[in-house]
């Protein structure tokens, strides 16, 4: 018998005879069915769920969302304006639909495949769904039953991809209250390298719902640099899961920059499964007005000699609300783990609020682990110093606000990407109120 909890009402109308890509494949059909059963039983997470304590889905649940969209055709020029990088492979999804015309995935370097997920099922079959848990209530199950498109990337062994791959996901606003469920799968074979940017953009201020799951598989000695820029509209709901599994000696650098959306929830997770694997997990969130941003991160050190370095920073203004919950799990065999986790927050207004909870659970005894979190305001001595050098108060506050983001941005080693992201961040800095 179907049970749909109160919070699942936006999706109560999804009928079971809706069709999806891959319905002809028994394994995929059964995966979707499993997810459907799970979602129908558990629905969306309620606030009593520990992981959702500070993030209420009530405003979300009050909304009705539509599936299947009229898409708005964009010109190549418009698309060029929206993209972060010019000289990159580009994979464009507009209103949930892959656009071959706007994408630039011809003439790929040998050893690289980039394809719409709906046409890459064979490629990703061994990996799809392996990085995420279906059993928890919520959006991953919904995504798995509903996924309609996404980007599949595979890189062959020993291949180093020179160009960055930009995944550009645009919500045009052409269809009101559009819900899209995207699944991206990134597979790097051993000793391969790639750089990928996920870029989410809303073109107008309408409500929408983006539900993405990105699965990352790094084989031995693979290196992935991964950046995510979320600039959805101020009425958008953006729910994202980013989950990786890392084999020995693999290196994953990921940096999530969250600027837009009314409610943005990001779950970022990696499992360090092989020795000498390393993750740099960074993020930056800037929220203003009534925005709500929630980052839940988790790093599992499961074997010996793995390292993680995590730096999240947040700037909050207006009546915005931020949540950071970072969990580092050092399992009992994970001797010689080196883990560092930091979360620092800058509050610019009286009305904003941050709940920060860095957590380390350590079951091994020979480890080097540190974590810390701070919540502060603009330093009065710094402000006076800048003013005493002639900078007016507004400029001085903006400069100090921007300066707060510097160390996160400095950790982006490609100058091209760093500059591009820094420009976007600078434009979106909350205007400090005096």
């Amino acid at each position, binding site marked *: 018998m179907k049970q749909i909890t109160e919070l699942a009402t936006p999706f109560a109308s999804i009928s079971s005879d809706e069709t999806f890509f891959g319905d002809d494949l028994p394994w995929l059909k059964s995966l979707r069915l499993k997810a459907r059963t799970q979602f129908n039983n558990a629905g969306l997470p309620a606030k009593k769920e520990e992981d959702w304590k500070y993030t209420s889905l009530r405003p979300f649940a009050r909304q009705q969302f539509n599936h299947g969209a009229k898409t708005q055709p964009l010109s190549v020029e418009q698309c060029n304006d929206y993209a972060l990088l010019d000289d990159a492979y580009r994979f464009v999804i507009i209103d949930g639909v892959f656009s071959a015309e706007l994408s630039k995935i011809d003439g790929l370097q040998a050893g690289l495949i980039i394809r719409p997920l709906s046409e890459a099922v064979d490629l990703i079959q061994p990996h799809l769904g392996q990085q995420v848990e279906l059993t928890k209530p919520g959006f991953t199950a919904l995504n798995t039953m509903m996924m309609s498109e996404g980007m599949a990337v595979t890189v062959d062994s020993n291949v180093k991809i020179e160009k960055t791959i930009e995944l550009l996901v645009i919500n045009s606003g052409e269809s009101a209250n559009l819900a899209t469920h995207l699944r991206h799968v990134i597979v790097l074979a051993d000793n391969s390298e790639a750089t990928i940017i996920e870029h989410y953009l809303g073109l107008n201020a309408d409500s929408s719902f983006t539900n993405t799951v990105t699965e990352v598989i790094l084989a031995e000695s693979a290196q992935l640099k991964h950046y995510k820029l979320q600039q959805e509209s101020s009425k958008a709901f953006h729910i994202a899961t980013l989950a990786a599994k890392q084999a020995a000696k693999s290196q994953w650098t990921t940096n999530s920059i969250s600027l837009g959306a009314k409610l943005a929830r990001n779950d970022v997770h990696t499992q360090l499964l092989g020795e000498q694997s390393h993750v740099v997990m960074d993020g930056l969130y800037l929220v203003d007005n009534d925005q709500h941003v929630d980052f839940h991160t988790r790093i599992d050190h499961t074997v010996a000699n793995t390292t993680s370095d995590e730096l999240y920073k947040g700037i909050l203004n207006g009546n915005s609300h931020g949540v950071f919950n970072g969990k580092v799990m050092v399992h009992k065999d994970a001797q010689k783990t080196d883990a560092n986790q930091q979360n620092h927050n800058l509050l610019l207004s009286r009305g904003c609020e941050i709940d920060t909870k860095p957590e380390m659970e350590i079951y091994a005894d020979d480890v080097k682990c540190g974590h810390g979190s701070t919540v502060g305001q603009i*330093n*009065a*001595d*710094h402000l*006076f*110093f*800048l*003013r*005493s*050098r*002639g*900078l*007016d*108060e507004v*400029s*001085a506050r903006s*400069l*100090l606000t*921007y*300066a*707060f*983001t*510097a*160390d996160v941005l400095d950790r982006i080693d490609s100058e091209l990407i760093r500059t591009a992201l820094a420009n976007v961040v600078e434009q979106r800095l909350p205007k400090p109120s005096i």
Partner: protein
Amino acid sequence: MKMLEIKNLHASVGDKEILRGINLTINAGEVHAIMGPNGAGKSTLSNVLAGRDGYTITQGEVLYKGENLLELAAEERAQRGVFLAFQYPVEIPGVSNIYLLKAALNAVRKYQGLDELDAIDFLSLVRSKLDLVKMDEQFLHRGVNEGFSGGEKKRNEILQMALLEPSLAILDETDSGLDIDALKTVSEGVNGLRSADRSIVMITHYQRLLDYIEPDFVHVLSDGKIVKTGDKELAKELEKTGYSWVQQGQAE
């Protein structure tokens, strides 16, 4: 021309009165040294002049080039040529030194009705000032004072001063923490700025600085008041005898 006139200035923090009736006139072109025991109120006076928040002026007034200084915001004072070299320069990670120098110079130039310098002119100007204080160019690209040694921070203050060319420079213990060579370099930098239309106030504990930068007047500030004024001989006397005799001589 009178650069600065401080008349019966009283300032408090909370209900603690720190400046208790300061009178001091500084003419254009003069160099004044202010000495005095720890806690006398020297830094408080410089902060009040530079416009730091948190002090209540309970009595008195301050005129800068004839204008009521205390009514101006800190940045307005800086733009008009008041410069304070801090006793304890702050570190500001994330703001590069060169960015600060550029923003500061442009703020002052804007007030003066001048255009911003283009990148090339700006850099060559900064380079000439770096030479003056014998600082390496790499300091430009570090965060403001970030990880600088004590002496490097003080030099960096003088670099900013040299670039901004203020009319009234207040140096709060710029000599403290400098090695002998650095003291010489910094002094040369300051002497290079001496001119008929510029005034300098040096707060110091050490007579040695005054060998390098000869003051026109030496004042002793004690317990929130100027209790004695003399010429550079006064500093030498203080070096020998300490402050107790001036403090005792202060008839309440």
